[in-house]
């Protein structure tokens, strides 16, 4: 599943972020999931659990939060959400799930119809923060 590749990237990013630190200090990882990724959270969560089984930070919690998509038209300045976009079919949503930039093939500014827009929010999967325990206290 596509979710596995993204989960693998999150685990690798966690390991990289912990370099030079005691992995036992890691209490939680806050993961921001862009709405455009349309991740199956159950599969993603299962992948995260499975992929970190052999890692020294396996005991840390992974907290998932969805970031709603926001588009900004470069032509007229209109901002709009995914819900405000002209109705997307299940197939086009699936295409955007695989490759969020594919939105530029299917979405147009609801005000002026321009294809020239930027995805301001809701793209990608990222680690927004790590929660570490330092000397027995949480930070």
């Amino acid at each position, binding site marked *: *599943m596509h979710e596995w590749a993204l989960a693998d990237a999150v685990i690798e990013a966690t390991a990289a972020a912990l370099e030079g630190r005691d992995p036992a200090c890691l209490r939680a990882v806050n993961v921001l999931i862009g709405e455009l990724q349309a991740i199956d959270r159950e599969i993603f969560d299962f992948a995260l659990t499975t992929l970190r089984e052999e890692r020294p930070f396996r005991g840390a919690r992974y907290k998932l939060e969805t970031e709603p998509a926001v588009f900004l038209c470069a032509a007229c300045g209109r901002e709009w959400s995914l819900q405000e976009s002209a109705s997307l079919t299940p197939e086009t949503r699936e295409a955007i799930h695989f490759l969020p930039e*594919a939105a*530029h093939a299917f979405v147009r500014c609801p005000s002026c119809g321009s294809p020239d827009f930027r995805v301001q929010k809701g793209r990608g999967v990222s680690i927004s923060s790590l929660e570490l325990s330092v000397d027995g206290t949480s930070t």
Partner: protein
Amino acid sequence: MCTAVAGIALAGRGKRVGILDLDLQGASTHVFLGVHPGLPKEDKGILPIPVLDNLHLMSVAAFTGELPLALRGAEVSEALRELLAVTQWGTLDYLFIDMPPGIGDEVLDLARLIPHMEAIVVSTPSQVSVAVVERLLAVLGEMHIAVPGVIANMVRESAESVKDLARRCGVTFAGEVQYEPGIESAVGAPGALGRTGAATALLLALEMMRFSPAPIIRGIPRRGGTG
């Protein structure tokens, strides 16, 4: 054209070949290969589209079909990284990455993400093409990207201008592909493309580059300048 035909030719020799079409705004490799991709299958990532038993393709066309895709710079980089990260190629003998013309985000991103890649550079004999390609070679040299060779494409009379370019830049002239009026009718038919003169010429060029050390270009003198 060269990427598609080279891929077909090598696959015909039993090699396991992948082609990644990174011309996101002008994807055309699927047209050459006669593939009308739908959404790819998934298996811990996305699976490239089978063209032949041992030739697979990943293209943005799998997600957008023939719809236009207007992207700005940062979005090109995002899409490129996504395709590189999640495509499950399996074991390949060759991965060809088909690049758009120019020295844009795609070249700059790949140089950073895959610093060990080798750039096979293609130019037509036109003085316009040679001038543009010379700039590309200069930048590749500055980024320490190995260039195993330069190929002259669509040669009608002489490839001398491209040979001169290769000499000036200190890279191997790997061969020439003659202009072939009949190639248009072979577009979309991998079998027919594999039987063209272009396929033979590209195989020879690839063999030439395989046995030729790939120099990293340094200090290409600029035309009209000193040094």
